C-alpha cells in the first residue's frame, strides 16, 4: 500500500483550558495524520468529555468521525460517577458507526480502577465486544491521584472478563507502574499497552518489544497533549526488526480494537 498506513491508537480533540494549544481540533489532527502517514486515529474523547461531559460530547465525536471519512474512530467515555447515564449514551453509540471502544480514567474520575463502580462497564464491554482503554501510570509524588490508575488495580477485571480487551495507556508510566503493566500484558491474553504520552525513556521501545509478546504494544500519540512526531520517530528508528515496527505502528491496534482498515 502506498497511502497512509499508521494507526494512532490514542489521540484526543477539542479545546484545552489548562495549557496553550493553538491547534487541537479534528481538522488539525487530520492535517497531521496526512503529513505523518497516519491512516486512522482513535479519538479517546475531548477534555470536556473526559472531565464529565456527556451525550453532546459523544455526539461531537461521532460528527468528527463522519466528517473525517471514517479516519477518526472514537471511544466513548465511562465515568463511574455518572455510570447509568454514560452506559445509556454508549448503548446508543453502539448502533452507529465509528465507536471503537470505551475510555476510562480512574485518576481524572477520582475512582480506583478496581472499584465496583466499574463492574457495569466491564459487563457492557463484554456484551458489546468493545475494547476498554484506560489511563495507567506509576506512583507519583507530583500527582498522588495517579495511584488510582496503577496497572495492578485492573487485574481483577481482566481475570473476571477475559473476553474484554484492555489497553493500558502510557504502558504504566515512567516508574513502578511499568513492570506491573508488562506483567499484566505478558500474563493475560486480553491486555495490551500503548506508548501514548511523554514516556520518552531511553530505549523504551526496544525494552518493551523484548519483554512483551509481539502483538501487545501499540503506537499512540496523546495528541494534542503531545505531538505525534514525538513517539513516531523513536519507533521508526528503534533498534528492533521491521516486522516489530509494523506491528506497533499498525497491526497491534488493528487487533486490539478489532479495526477493519481498508486501503
Amino acid at each position, binding site marked *: *500500500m502506498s497511502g497512509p498506513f499508521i494507526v494512532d491508537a490514542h489521540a484526543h480533540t477539542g479545546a484545552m483550558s489548562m*495549557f*496553550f*494549544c493553538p491547534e487541537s481540533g479534528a481538522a488539525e489532527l487530520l492535517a497531521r495524520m496526512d503529513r505523518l502517514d497516519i491512516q486512522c486515529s482513535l479519538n479517546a474523547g475531548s477534555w470536556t468529555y473526559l472531565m464529565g461531559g456527556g451525550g453532546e460530547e459523544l455526539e461531537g465525536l461521532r460528527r468528527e468521525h463522519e466528517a473525517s471519512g471514517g479516519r477518526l474512530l472514537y471511544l466513548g467515555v465511562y465515568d463511574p460517577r455518572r455510570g447509568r447515564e454514560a452506559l445509556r449514551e454508549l448503548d446508543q453509540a453502539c448502533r452507529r458507526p465509528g465507536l471503537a471502544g470505551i475510555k476510562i480514567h480512574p485518576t481524572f474520575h477520582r475512582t480506583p480502577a478496581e472499584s465496583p463502580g466499574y463492574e457495569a462497564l466491564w459487563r457492557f464491554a463484554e456484551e458489546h465486544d468493545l475494547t476498554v482503554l484506560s489511563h495507567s501510570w506509576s506512583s507519583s509524588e507530583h500527582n498522588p491521584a495517579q495511584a488510582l490508575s496503577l496497572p495492578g488495580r485492573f487485574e481483577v477485571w481482566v481475570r473476571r472478563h477475559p473476553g474484554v480487551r484492555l489497553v493500558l495507556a502510557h504502558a504504566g508510566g515512567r516508574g513502578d507502574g*511499568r513492570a506491573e503493566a508488562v506483567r499484566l500484558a505478558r500474563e493475560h491474553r486480553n491486555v495490551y499497552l500503548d506508548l501514548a504520552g511523554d514516556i520518552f525513556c531511553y530505549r*523504551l521501545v526496544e525494552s518493551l518489544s523484548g519483554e512483551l509478546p509481539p502483538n501487545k504494544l501499540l503506537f499512540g500519540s496523546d495528541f494534542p497533549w*503531545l505531538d505525534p512526531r514525538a513517539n513516531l520517530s523513536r519507533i521508526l*528508528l528503534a533498534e528492533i526488526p521491521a*516486522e516489530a515496527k509494523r506491528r506497533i505502528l499498525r497491526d497491534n491496534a488493528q487487533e486490539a480494537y478489532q479495526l477493519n*482498515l481498508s486501503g
Partner: protein
Amino acid sequence: MDRRVDGEAPGLEARIEALALERRQQAESLRPFDANAWLGEPAGFPLAREMQPPELLRALRGCGIQAALVSHWAGLRVAPQAGNSALAQALGGAGEALRACWTGLPLFPREGGPLPGAGSLPLAAGAVRLFPRSHNFPLAYWVIGELCSWLTEHRLPLFLWHVEIDWPSLHALAVAFPRLAIVVETQTQKILYQNRALFALMKDCPNVHAETSNLAGADFLRWAARELGARRLLFGSFLPVNDPWVALGMILEADLSWEEKRLVAGDNLRRLLPEARA
C-alpha cells in the same frame, strides 16, 4: 488478524525501513549539538541508567549527534562543587565533542570548591546551570546578580530547569541582564501546563531561549519558530533519561525550513557557545 494486511506486510516493512533510513540521514546532516546530556546517576528517574562518557558518546553518535553540552547529576543531588569536580574528571579525556555545563551557586556568601565565578573554569566549560529551588536560594537580583554579571562578562549562557524557577523572578532577571543568554529547559517534567508563561516570557525577553527535549506539545516547534524565531530554540536530548530520537524526531518532522532545522538542531547552541570547537 486481517489477512489482507498480512499480505501487505513485506511492502510495509520495506517502507518503514526507508522512512527510518531517511530520518537517520537527515539527522546526521543537521549536525546536531545536544544542549542536554548527563553523566552520573540520574536523580528522580528510577528506571534510567547511568552512562560513562564513552557510552554516552556512542549513544549520541548513534543518533547522528555530533557534540553535546554535558551536565553531572551530582551537581544537583550532592553539591554543585561535587558535580563540577566529577564533570571535570569525567570529561578530561573525552575530547572536544563533550562540553561541560557547570552547576553554580550565588557568589555571596563565598563557598569553597570549583564553582563558576569563584576561580578559573576549565577550557571545556560552556555554560552554567542553577538549581534555585533544590539549592534553596531565590532567583533574585540581590542573590545571583553578581553571578549573572560574571556570566555575561564571560559570555556563558545560564541554563535553568523550568521546575526550578518561578516565572516572575525569571522575567525580572532576564530584563535586568539583557545580554545574558538564558535557556529555559523543559525538564524534569514536560513543559505544557506552563507554556503560556514560557512563550510570554520569550516574547518579552529576546535573551530567553527554550530547550526542546520536552517541548513536545502539538506543533509547538513550528508555532514557536513562527512567533518567536527559530533562533530561540535549542535541541536537547536529556540522554540517558530520554530517547534522543524523541526530540530529534520532532525537529526532523517539523514544518520548518531546512535552515531553521539546522539552527534548532545545533547551530543556535554553537552560537551561544562561541568558543565551541565541535
